[in-house]
């Protein structure tokens, strides 16, 4: 029905009209994009899913709005509705005005005039959003051709080169003819941004633009987005689940929950003075990379509500620790709160949640678990895993018939470390640095490997027979990154958990007993054992994965990015669980993660890897508070912190480029090609970096910290340091 797409057209929509009048349908005439009472409904097998329920916002030119919320909160659907990219089966009502022109209800063809011209979008996954069969230049020029058919070819080429240069792609003229697969993920995202800003859009919508990228690349891309915004003067809608990412960028924040904005306001109000328990929970659930003190994270228990049923009360009430009977009496409207001018929150208790209320008072965080090993000095604990000079080199061959070896990829190059009982050891680094290969080498446990892996006293050199391997498997188990992929969809939870136990030769009754124990241990209801994995939420599935790993009582659990696929609020619960299990069962962890905040929170020791080598290793507080290697410093400075003021004034090291291809691996220090210290060194000293390989040496003070750099105290190159001007970002 066409009348549904224009607000206030029918008499039956009177409450809407009144509501819109209050919200000010025609307010803020200078707003470049104004959204009023946006509603999106999908028909599903189970009923009508009301995915977005009444979103209002105004976007001023040149400003950035951050939309934050967990998955399923309707962030992406909102952006797609604005772009008119939802499937025709979705029912969209309300009003979306771009420079005063109504967009909802326009045909797909009419929308094409706006999309890519005034309204542009950057998608989450840069790997799949470029067409692999066309060159990057063709794809940029396509965006220009569509909206400027009269433009000449040379003009378009010049503009494409200009755009590529603007997003920081080196030698843009040559790269125009390159295909997407010749670019790395971060570069492709830059190209996507270039395409998006090709026609000087008024509004740029970025849907989780950095979620799929490494932290160092994320910092680069955020920087590019920032320059792109400055160049074009576009307003940006930034959709993310990471409160850190938007802290430094956004002017205003809208927190969404269950398809509804629950708190909106200027960025400082939201971060320093949240008035809605959900926002407080989100902020408390994020581990901080800059905080050393050990306190449990605040998990938000429960799951987002099912949007098929219309909530009769506050939609957050079932998960809210402050909920009372009054909360169930109708959904609270978004009402202004004292303090910020435009700060509004949808909570009846917002007045009592002033700036002084600590999130730990509101949400009950579990006590910090203490392991029995914490009191014993590290040197006196027994070793559960030891790696001695482990190498994994892959030959690189070329030629169809006769394979010539043209080089070696040194995925892991001489790695040595050990893990003691009750300890969490983390490996961090960009993708391609050899973290996962290291894990695979450990899990492989084969006598032919280069280097020695000792697990609980069993060396891989003696692991010729299946029996030794079986014994090793009982010492070491793994938790995978993607909880969905790691569980056989055709197994019930019972079968999933029974598999390692059957393999260990336990009888039926003992297996049953153990499974019930495990379910309780990881905080799942024991009577859910007959369900299939797809009946659980992501966090619960990861708990099942953890339970499976713990089934045979291993000493060491290998965690491969255990929380990166989870929402912030759920992530906190899983991290707390891991912490708790480590203390209670005396487990050791080997954790691989790209999220340094999580690493800081959970681990005792950390190793930073770059191109297959450890560049810095030591106690986590030492390494994070006093990083010596320039790469560690760059990594740490790239992590966004959920603190807008700190974020604005923080000095950032932006590494140039990506990981070098293993073929061009430098002879001396691996990191020299991207090193900010190296760039600032005089040529005489540079020579040393280029010819000699820095060994891993202990830091001056005799603490648990080693690093591999000749000039740890060298000056940083000015070009690679970015400090945002504070005045740049203050909201009006």
């Amino acid at each position, binding site marked *: 029905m066409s009348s549904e797409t224009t607000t206030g057209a029918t008499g039956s929509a009177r409450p809407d009209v009144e509501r819109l009048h209050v919200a000010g349908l025609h307010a803020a005439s200078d707003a470049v994009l104004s959204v009023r009472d946006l509603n999106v409904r999908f028909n599903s097998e189970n009923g009508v899913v009301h995915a977005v329920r009444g979103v209002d916002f105004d976007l001023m030119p040149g400003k950035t709005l951050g939309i934050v919320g967990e998955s399923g909160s309707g962030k992406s659907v909102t952006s797609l509705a604005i772009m008119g990219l939802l499937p025709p089966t979705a029912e969209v009502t309300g009003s979306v005005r771009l420079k005063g022109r109504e967009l909802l209800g326009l045909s797909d063809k009419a929308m094409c005039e706006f999309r890519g011209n005034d309204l542009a979008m950057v998608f989450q996954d840069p790997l799949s959003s470029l067409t692999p069969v066309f060159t990057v230049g063709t794809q940029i020029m396509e965006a220009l051709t569509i909206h400027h058919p009269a433009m000449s070819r040379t003009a378009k080429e010049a503009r494409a080169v200009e755009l590529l240069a603007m997003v920081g792609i080196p030698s843009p003229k040559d790269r125009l003819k390159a295909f997407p697969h010749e670019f790395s993920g971060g570069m492709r995202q830059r190209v996507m941004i270039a395409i998006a800003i090709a026609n000087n859009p008024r509004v740029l919508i970025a849907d989780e633009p950095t979620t799929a990228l490494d932290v160092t690349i994320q910092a680069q891309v955020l920087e590019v987005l920032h320059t792109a915004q400055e160049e074009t003067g576009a307003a940006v809608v930034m959709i993310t689940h990471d409160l850190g990412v938007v802290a430094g960028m956004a002017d205003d924040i809208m927190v969404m929950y269950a398809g509804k904005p629950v708190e909106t306001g200027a960025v400082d109000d939201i971060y320093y003075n949240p008035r809605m328990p959900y926002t407080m929970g989100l902020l408390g659930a994020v581990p901080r990379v800059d905080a050393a003190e050990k306190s449990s994270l605040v998990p938000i228990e429960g799951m987002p509500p099912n949007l098929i049923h219309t909530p009769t009360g506050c939609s957050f*009430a079932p998960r809210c620790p402050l909920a009372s*009977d009054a909360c169930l009496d109708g959904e609270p409207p978004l009402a202004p709160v004292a303090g910020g001018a435009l700060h509004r929150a949808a909570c009846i208790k917002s007045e009592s949640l002033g700036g002084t209320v600590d999130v730990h008072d509101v949400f009950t965080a579990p006590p910090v678990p203490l392991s029995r090993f914490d009191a014993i000095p590290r040197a006196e604990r027994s070793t559960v895993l030891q790696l001695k000079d482990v190498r994994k080199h892959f030959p690189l061959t070329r030629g169809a018939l006769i394979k010539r070896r043209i080089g070696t990829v040194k995925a892991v190059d001489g790695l040595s470390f050990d893990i003691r009982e009750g300890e969490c050891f983390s490996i961090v680094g960009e993708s391609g640095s050899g973290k996962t290969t290291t894990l695979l080498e450990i899990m492989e446990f084969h006598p032919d490997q280069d280097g020695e892996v000792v697990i609980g006293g069993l060396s891989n050199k003696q692991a010729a027979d299946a029996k030794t391997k079986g014994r090793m498997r009982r010492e070491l188990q793994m938790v995978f990154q993607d909880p969905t*992929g790691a569980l*056989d969809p055709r197994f019930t939870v019972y079968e999933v958990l029974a*598999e390692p136990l059957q393999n260990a030769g336990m009888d039926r009754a003992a297996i049953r007993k153990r499974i019930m124990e495990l379910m309780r241990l990881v905080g799942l209801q024991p009577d859910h054992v007959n369900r*299939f994995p797809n009946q659980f939420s992501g966090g619960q599935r990861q708990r099942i994965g953890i339970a499976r790993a713990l089934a045979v009582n291993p000493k060491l659990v290998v965690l491969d990015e255990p929380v990166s696929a989870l929402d912030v609020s759920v992530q906190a619960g899983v991290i707390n669980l891991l912490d708790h299990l480590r203390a209670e069962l005396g487990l050791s962890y080997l954790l691989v993660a790209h999220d340094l905040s999580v690493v800081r929170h959970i681990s005792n020791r950390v190793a930073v890897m770059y191109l297959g080598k450890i560049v810095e290793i030591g106690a986590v507080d030492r390494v994070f508070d006093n990083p010596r290697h320039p790469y560690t410093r760059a990594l740490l400075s790239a992590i966004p912190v959920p603190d807008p003021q700190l974020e604005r004034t923080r000095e950032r090291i932006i590494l140039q480029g990506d990981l070098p291809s293993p073929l061009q691996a430098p002879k001396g220090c691996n990191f020299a090609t991207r090193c900010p210290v190296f760039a600032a060194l005089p040529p005489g000293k540079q020579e040393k970096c280029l010819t000699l390989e820095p060994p891993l040496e202990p830091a001056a003070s005799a603490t648990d910290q080693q690093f591999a750099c000749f000039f740890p105290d060298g000056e940083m190159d000015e070009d690679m340091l970015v400090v945002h001007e504070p005045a740049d970002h203050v909201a009006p």
Partner: protein
Amino acid sequence: MTYLNAVDPAAVAQDAHLESVDVVIGKNTIIFRRFLRNKTAVAGLAIFLALTVFSFIGGFFTEWDKETIDPFNIGMPPSADHYLGTSQAGIDLYAMTVEGTRISILIGLVVGLVSVLVAAVYGCTMAYFGGKVDKGMLFILEALIMMPALLVVAVATSGGGAGLKRDLPSWLLLIIVLLVFSWMGTARLIRSMSMSLMQRDFVKAAQYMGVPPRRIVWRHLVPNIGSLLILDITRGVTAAILAEVAFSFIGIGIKVPDVSLGVLIGQATSQVQTFPWMFWVPLTVMFLLTGSLAMMNDGLRDAFDPSSSSTGKAKKAKARKIHAEKKTA
């Protein structure tokens, strides 16, 4: 501070319902229920079962058999004596149809089941071990695909296989030949599907738990391509029945005195005008047979697919009700 869990009574009720039911429902029950929900599939199954039963006990309802000639009724249309009439030679068509249906179903089931089983094990083994094993097995597979099946069938059942023919009934010979040439396509498909499954974390998880390869193939790979296997069995049965009909039709499949639907149809084609019942009866039975299998196919896939959208009936009805309420409001 009150911690409230009960907000939405509908959601709570649904949850409670889920919990009470879920504990008792087994996996097989769920699959069975989903299958039963598809009416076409159930009808297909019923027809197929009825035909199978008919082919085994149908012979008891008449005193004639496929070899006895009735000299008083030669080429007669259906009558009380001969339910479906008689052939040109005076043999009862009903008896022949019963016998022919049995042979066709036998050939179809054996070839369909065994070839898919061979394909599954062969394909999964190739994918699991990879490398040299994969290469060698793939070579055998490709070589078999290259071989002209029609010629081999013709040679085996006619001239060349004289020794074989003496020892084996013609239907068993046909089964063997069909088996040899029917599993390769499926095996190659299964190989590629299992290869992508091998990349999945749950296979890695099982490997890291120390589960032996044989078990991983059998417990993780085969069930996860289960819906494909089921579809391929029903498709394979259909294909085998049709192949038998086709080979017999051109005279290189089942040989007289053995009867099959193909033989009956083949014999009758020249006399559709004079003895129409001789042609239409076996043809109808063949259509019923292959048609019922096709009807089952769809229902089976839905039942086995864990991500299938086939949801409970109650839920659908409820959703419709809610929707209706909304519209009226």
